[in-house]
């Protein structure tokens, strides 16, 4: 390599691939992050899909992005701002202008920065960098399209197919920039294009051309050397996004409980990948029904649960609204059910491809009647596995619907994951009614300690019974309209959920535990809150962080933890739903809040600013 090249040693770096939705940016982003993970980096990624799949080419609405953060350790978020941006057209440059670090390297495809292209992205002048006030960035302007085509002349491809390889040229450049051997990319391409030999060869050629172009000509930009983690925990690793992890968590729970897995679902962004993944798992006997609507999604699952399966339904906010009545049925019938809500920007259709945490109240209370359910919120892409496992465990063992909240950010984002050993996971024991109590058994006979009713699955002789949405008598299980009985049953259903607090982990405060200030979060904001608190702790500022995965019931030590801090700030991607929930539960505790509803995750920097201000306030 040329001597003039400045090699920058970094412990982490953020790269954003951005272009038209047809430019293949998701693919190169994925390949590059896989590569980084295999080479020993921790990664966290976040695909940012365009709002409109069919937006005009080159328009701002059609920009598709993929951000990856890689580093030696503690990579908890995909990063606020990019060190390197690949912008395949002017629109990609424009939409990302606020997400660039000073001195950021920007690689652009010169061929798609013509006057016409600039117009499509609504630029007024011919100097987009000037117009966007991007003064300190290091621009690498490369005629990516034409060089890709030139390199592929002998491959006999039509123009369109040749141009499509330009994303690999860009990836080659990035590999050069980050000192990544391109040999390790070829296996991915071989897998991806296994049935199209020429296309595969063309992609490898474009990749090599891109790499060589960087190595041969660009001597003056910063290239990077990223530390890799020297001592990661032994084991097998993969990288995984939240939706896949959720699907895997359900599969693992089914295997552990011995129950067949059933998913009833209706396609909805950003939850559909859970259906996709489980539909593939016929090998493991998973049954999926793609239903006619959201209501059928949950109702088929309720039927499957009644018939003795581990049953789940997956959806997003609008679908959860449609499922409300059926969740009430599952509450009343006291059957196990996992409802996964991958939250997105709302209300109504809202921002389908963006992230938000605004379904919390809907999950807790969005039904008629006193209708308590367990609510769990996954904290990171990989934690979706554990959260889905726990959701299944609590649903089955406590005969209750469980709403698992994830969100668009952790569902699509991915990180490195050490493959879990199921043997160390807690067992899942369905409360099947024992034959020994056949004579005294009634449909709502309960374990008096846990208030969990016994499960009698159709097919068992001597346990034929009828249940349903009408109120039942506490003792006999037959329909009852008795006023006192309704009180008892309502109290019992609530008590059953409350008692689950005895079966879930307690809160663990992180950071400077003995400080005055406690940052509180829940669900998918873990990475950002934790990064902000870590970074403040590292610079000597004392601040603690506690993160909720179990929302209903709350962990047993919640009050104890909260009452230890002078200042509490609840941070969430909504207008303050969890803050309000905590205030309702613990009215004597003073709670500040920090909220954002922009369809985007928090930025670590904005959190640090806010927390610093809070520390200074008297």
């Amino acid at each position, binding site marked *: 390599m040329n001597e003039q090249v400045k090699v920058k040693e970094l412990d982490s770096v953020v790269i954003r691939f951005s272009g038209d939705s047809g430019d293949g940016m998701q693919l190169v982003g994925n390949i590059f992050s*896989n590569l980084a*993970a*295999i080479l*020993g980096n921790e990664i966290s990624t976040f695909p940012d899909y365009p709002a409109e799949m069919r937006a005009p080419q080159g328009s701002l609405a059609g920009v598709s992005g993929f951000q990856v953060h890689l580093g030696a350790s503690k990579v908890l978020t995909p990063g606020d701002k990019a060190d390197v941006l690949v912008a395949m057209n002017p629109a990609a440059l424009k939409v990302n202008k606020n997400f660039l670090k000073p001195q950021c390297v920007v690689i652009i495809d010169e061929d798609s920065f013509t006057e016409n292209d600039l117009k499509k992205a609504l630029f007024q002048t011919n100097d987009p960098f000037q117009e966007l006030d991007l003064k300190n960035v290091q621009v690498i302007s490369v005629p990516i399209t034409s060089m890709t085509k030139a390199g592929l002349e002998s491959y006999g491809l039509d123009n369109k197919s040749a141009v499509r390889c330009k994303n690999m040229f860009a990836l080659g450049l990035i590999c050069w920039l980050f000192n990544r051997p391109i040999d390790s990319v070829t296996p991915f391409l071989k897998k991806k294009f296994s049935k199209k030999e020429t296309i595969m060869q063309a992609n490898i050629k474009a990749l090599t051309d891109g790499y060589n172009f960087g190595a041969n000509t660009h001597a003056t930009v910063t290239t990077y050397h990223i530390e890799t983690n020297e001592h990661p*925990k032994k*084991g*097998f*690793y*993969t*990288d995984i996004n939240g939706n896949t992890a959720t699907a*895997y968590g359900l*599969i*693992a729970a089914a*295997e552990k409980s011995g129950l*067949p897995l*059933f998913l*009833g679902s209706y396609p909805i962004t950003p939850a559909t990948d859970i259906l996709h993944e489980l539909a593939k*798992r*016929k*090998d*493991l*006997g998973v*049954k999926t*029904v793609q*239903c*006619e*609507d959201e*209501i*059928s999604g949950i*109702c*088929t699952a*309720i*039927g*499957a*649960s*009644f*018939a*003795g*399966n581990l*049953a789940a339904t997956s959806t997003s906010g609008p679908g959860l609204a449609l499922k409300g*009545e*059926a969740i*009430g*049925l599952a509450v009343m*019938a006291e059957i196990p059910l996992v409802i996964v809500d991958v939250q997105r920007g709302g209300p109504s259709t809202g921002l389908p491809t963006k992230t938000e945490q605004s379904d919390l109240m809907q999950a807790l209370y969005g039904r008629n009647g006193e209708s308590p359910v367990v609510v769990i919120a996954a904290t990171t892409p990989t934690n979706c596995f554990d959260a889905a496992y726990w959701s299944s465990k609590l649903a089955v063992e406590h005969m209750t619907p469980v709403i698992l909240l994830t969100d668009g950010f952790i569902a699509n984002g991915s990180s490195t994951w050490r*493959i*879990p050993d*199921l043997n160390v996971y807690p067992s899942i024991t369905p409360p099947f009614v024992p034959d020994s109590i056949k004579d005294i058994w009634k449909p709502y006979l309960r374990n008096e300690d846990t208030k969990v009713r016994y499960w009698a699955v*159709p*097919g068992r*002789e*001597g*346990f*034929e*019974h*009828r249940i*349903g*949405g*009408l109120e039942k008598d506490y003792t006999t299980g*037959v329909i009852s309209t008795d006023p006192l009985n309704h009180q008892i049953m309502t109290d019992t259903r609530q008590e059953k959920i409350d008692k689950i607090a005895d079966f879930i982990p307690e809160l663990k405060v992180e950071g400077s535990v003995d400080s005055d200030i406690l940052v509180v979060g829940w669900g998918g904001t873990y990475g950002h809150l934790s990064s902000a608190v870590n970074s403040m702790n590292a610079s000597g500022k004392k601040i603690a962080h506690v993160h909720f995965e179990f929302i209903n019931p709350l962990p047993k030590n919640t009050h104890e933890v909260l009452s230890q801090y002078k200042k509490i700030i609840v941070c969430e991607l909504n207008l303050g739903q969890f803050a309000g929930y905590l205030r309702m539960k613990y009215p004597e505790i003073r709670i500040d809040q920090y909220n954002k509803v922009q369809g985007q995750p928090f930025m670590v920097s904005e959190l640090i600013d806010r927390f610093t201000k809070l520390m200074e306030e008297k």
Partner: protein
Amino acid sequence: MNSQYTAKDFKNEQQIKWCPGCGDFAVLNCLHKAMSEIGVAPADTAVISGIGCSSRLPYYMGTYGFHTIHGRGSAIATGVKVANPALSVWQITGDGDCLAIGGNHFIHAVRRNIDINIVLLNNKIYGLTKGQYSPTTERGYVTKSSPYGTIEDPFNPAELAFGARANFFARTIDVDLPSTTECMIAAAAHKGTAVIEVLQNCVIFTDGIHKYYSDKENRADRTIYLRQGEKMIFGKESNKGLVLQGLDLKAVTIGEDGYTIDDILTHDATLHDPTLHCKLAAMEGPELPLALGIIRNVEGINYDQAVVDQIHRVQANTQIKTFADLMMSGNVWEVK
């Protein structure tokens, strides 16, 4: 049929809450009787319903039963059957539950051809909410919610079912117990969604609504009971029959206008083409008799079996047998 069960095995001691004289009682008795003859154990039978007068029925069964929410019976029954295809699954529903709020689930259950038996009690009214018109109420009918008469045309449940490509459709009248029982038994034998429409009398809100056809006096002249492989003959004297004239069905008298028994159509419920079944199901008086019995009964691939078959096919060709296998099958690297 040889069966170890009696109707009593499918009953329970619950006090029945329907109005005295309600047509639902007859249907309940038929179901008890049919099940005893079908020979599936009560423990292996699940009866699912939505909301409405008829949807109370599962509570009066000695089987497994699930009284769910309005309109969702088909979806819940679908889940039960797919989760455990070994169960005999029945859905009890009414015209409001099945065709209004549950219309979408109904047509999709039929389209998928889930092996469930749907008993649709059609009394052309909302009984439980005390008398509003339903999707099968005739235009102009006065109810509490249509004090000046309805201004909508009704569904014919058979046409809706055929539109959704139903493979089995039967129609009976509540007062005709043997036929209802017979159709239920045939429905259970059919692999795939079976729809049985029972014309049921609501003594409170639409008393006599099906009287034109159900009246003992005139039933033989105003209805035709279709039997597989038999001539389409009806009438007190069994001297009337159906012929095809152009694209239309026509009722004729044998021995009049030159019609002989040979001109009369023979019923074939197994015809793949549903056109004639549709025509038969759409017949109404006074020109034509109302068709009763098994109008269509065609073999098809049922969904729940296809699910099982697909799983077996995939499992025969995979190395992935456990969660751990799945984990190691992807893009995995080891840190030593």
